[in-house]
């Protein structure tokens, strides 16, 4: 398990927690350390408790753990909320002059450092820099070279002028020096630096960047946590590449705008979260029957209804697989890491255009708000391949005319994929519709044509199953008796949980929910099969049981918090302990 260090800053929403946390995360990243961040937050803009947490190591990190080494607490509540994560050796930095810290039952060995953050910030030029003073103090506690913090401050405040940057540097030094002078202890933390180069980004940003890399130029959306960052990332950036972001009046409109742009020939996308997916559902069938390539992103959060908007869940799986009346051919792709959010977005666009179907890209809150370090080489723009599928130009149209010279946008082909003439292509004018239609796109209720078109659309999925690579990601020991399976973002914690376990585990992380890899063989080979996911009913486990015709063990989490590696390891141990040696029993969650 990585030699890790866990840090957090917490206070009230509106205290600048996020931006301060990000500055420290960036400093660590620039120092060549891996970073994995998470946020505790309430959706209120001001007043609620919020925290930005960083787990850092010189090795790669894939999850959070239940442990805090250094905590900057701007409020009493920050300490209360994190009591269980503190341990012998933890350090709490707080401002005794500003915040009354009542007695708290901190574990033995916890050190409290009372640092006059506000006073020192004023000394440096303004109270607003109090969090930066705390960062300086944290540098001292962790013997982390303050120069890396400088470079991150420069990035954050450079646009506001050199004097602002300078004041912040001073503030950080005042914090560092205060700790140095007042507390001469060695806290036992030593944050090494390396020569590695990393970039730091979250899943929403990776999806946005993936979209631009894939040539997406049209995005329509309606703000919703935790998908909004996709939209704000693209705003202003996609424009540089000839694209446009439009804020729709609701999600009914957003998906239809995106559909319109896709019909016009743009690579087009919309992103939302559960409540927005509900609204968009009415258009899923139209996207499918009009055979329009469209990427629809669902960044899941806790449901049902408004649920817990700022909490984690993988609860929309069934909705994405089955949402929409009638039978809607589609693909469902679930990126498993922040970097994969980028790659799977590019893949989603190619799938959408090759097979002229809706493609659901399903991420979740834990990916969306996690900032993770990634080697920039993982985003190799030269390696991006664009496949537009069967787009026909003027000279290609002739091949696809019926005996009366009319273009056939829904031609009944072997692989199910029909030619696509983009508007403006001479000779290609045609109608597309949500009504059942013939090869010309004209309404029909003929039973033969109906059967032909249903089978044609279905054949596209079969072709894709055959033609595309749906291989899952595999970790651990392929010979192990215990097989752990997860989908989407649960990969990170599950991967790391293996390192906490004594027994060998084979771990399969599935990024393709539909179509999905056939895991029957791996399941047959294993003695214990455990499916891990962030929902209460085990939606993915149901699919696995259906595919392999066996019963599996399930680990489900639905408290709104993502899996943590250590906690998940304990649950896996617990599941294995009865050691029934059989994978045909369902253990109660």
């Amino acid at each position, binding site marked *: 398990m990585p030699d890790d260090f866990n840090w957090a800053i917490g206070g009230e929403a509106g205290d600048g927690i996020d931006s301060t946390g990000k500055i420290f995360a960036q400093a660590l990243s620039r120092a060549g350390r891996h970073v994995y961040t998470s946020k505790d937050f309430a959706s209120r803009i001001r007043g609620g408790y919020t925290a930005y947490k960083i787990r850092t190591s010189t090795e790669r990190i894939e999850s959070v753990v239940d442990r805090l080494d250094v905590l900057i607490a701007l409020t009493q509540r920050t300490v209360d909320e994190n009591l269980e994560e503190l341990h012998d050796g933890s350090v709490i930095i707080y401002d005794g002059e500003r915040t009354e810290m009542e007695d708290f039952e901190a574990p033995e060995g916890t050190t409290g450092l009372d640092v006059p953050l506000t006073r020192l910030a004023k000394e440096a030029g303004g109270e607003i820099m109090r969090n930066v003073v705390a960062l300086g103090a944290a540098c001292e506690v962790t013997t982390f070279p303050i120069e890396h913090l400088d470079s991150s401050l420069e990035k954050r405040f450079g646009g506001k002028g050199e004097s602002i940057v300078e004041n912040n540097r001073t503030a950080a030094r005042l914090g560092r020096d205060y700790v140095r002078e007042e507390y001469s202890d060695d806290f036992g933390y030593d944050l090494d630096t390396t020569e590695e180069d990393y970039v730091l980004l979250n899943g929403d940003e990776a999806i946005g960047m993936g979209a631009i890399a894939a040539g997406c130029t049209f995005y329509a959306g309606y703000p919703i946590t935790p998908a909004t960052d996709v939209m704000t990332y693209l705003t202003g950036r996609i424009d540089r590449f000839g694209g446009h972001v439009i804020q729709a009046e609701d999600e009914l409109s957003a998906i239809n*705008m*995106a559909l319109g742009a896709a019909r016009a020939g743009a690579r087009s996308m919309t992103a939302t979260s559960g409540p927005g997916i509900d609204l968009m559902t009415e258009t899923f069938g139209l996207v499918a029957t009009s055979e329009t390539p469209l990427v629809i992103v669902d960044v899941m959060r806790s449901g049902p209804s408004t649920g817990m908007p700022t909490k984690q869940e993988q609860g929309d799986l069934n909705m994405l697989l089955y949402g929409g009346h009638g039978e809607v051919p589609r693909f469902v792709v679930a990126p498993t890491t922040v970097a994969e959010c980028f790659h799977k977005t590019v893949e989603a666009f190619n799938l959408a255009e090759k097979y002229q179907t809706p493609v659901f890209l399903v991420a979740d809150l834990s990916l969306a708000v996690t900032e993770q370090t990634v080697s920039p080489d993982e985003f190799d723009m030269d390696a991006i391949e664009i496949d537009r599928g069967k787009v026909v130009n003027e000279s290609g149209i002739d091949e696809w005319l019926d005996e009366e010279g009319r273009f056939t946008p829904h031609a009944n082909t072997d692989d199910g994929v029909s030619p696509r003439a983009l508007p403006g292509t001479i000779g290609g004018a045609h109608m597309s519709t949500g009504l059942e239609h013939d090869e010309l796109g004209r309404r029909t209720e003929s039973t033969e044509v109906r059967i032909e078109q249903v089978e044609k659309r279905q054949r596209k999925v079969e072709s894709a199953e055959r033609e595309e690579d749906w291989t899952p990601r595999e970790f651990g020991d392929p010979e192990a008796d215990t097989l752990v399976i997860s989908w989407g973002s649960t990969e990170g914690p599950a991967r790391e949980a293996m390192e906490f376990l004594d027994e060998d585990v084979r771990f399969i992380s599935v990024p393709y929910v539909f179509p999905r890899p056939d895991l029957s063989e791996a399941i047959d080979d294993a003695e214990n099969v455990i499916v891990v996911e962030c929902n209460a009913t085990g939606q993915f486990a149901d699919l696995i049981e259906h595919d392999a015709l066996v019963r599996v063990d399930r680990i489900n989490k639905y408290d709104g918090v993502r899996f943590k590696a250590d906690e998940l390891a304990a649950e896996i141990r617990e599941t294995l302990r009865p050691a029934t040696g059989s994978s045909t029993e369902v253990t109660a969650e």
Partner: protein
Amino acid sequence: MSSEVRFTDFKSDKQPTWCPGCGDFGTMNGMMKALANTGNHPDETFIVAGIGCSGKIGTYMHSYALHGVHGRALPVGTGVKLANPDLEVMVAGGDGDGYSIGAGHFVHAVRRNVDMTYVVMDNRIYGLTKGQFSPTSREDFETSTSPDGTMMAPVNPLALALAAGATFIAQSFSSDALRHAEIIEEAIEHDGFGFVNVYSPCVTFNDVDTYDYFRDSLVDLQEEGHDPTDDDAAKEIILDADREYQGVIYQDEDSVPYSERHGLDENMANVPDGAPDGAMDLVREFY
């Protein structure tokens, strides 16, 4: 090529199944004429049709077209036009499609002022579902779902458009073929969102808002010498509940369409073979 386009080029070979005498025939003919007269070509025209008897228009006309989900035609049209500004985009649907299930989109489409034409075939009834009241039905109109009348004031679509900041508001009557086509033509030529409410009588389910009724009550604004750039006069006409008007009621000559405001003039259908030039800069931003 445009000089050779005739209005019949916009006609598909599918025979309309509208009831004989339905107002939608006239509405469609006027649209085809206006498209041809303004130099458009079916291969460079995109029609988005709503759901309803009116929405069948997408099938009977020849062009690139999408017949989508009930009430969502305007968002689709918006996406098409922004993605490819070279296309002539025309959205057409019923009064239920536009002012009931799609009312939210109507207001915002008006505000955005995307350069397209919106034709509402207003028969003051739900035709396709066989005769329920619509948002423009009169208060005392008795239908299968309003046996004692709707007991609600009808929506005034022109006033809705006005309140949302429309740059072009017009009304026509499908049976006045010449004027109807002229008015649609003006809407097409308008730089921005050209909105035309077209009285298209339903001969099967509406025995109140009939051809005779409109013929007798319509006042032609051109004959009246109305100046559409005169805001105050336009407001008065729009809010006049006692008379029916035909013509261009309001036009903002300084209208700047959405695409122009946002500098959108490229056809987004041109997608590069790999990641676009400069994509690596996006990665560097995350250092």
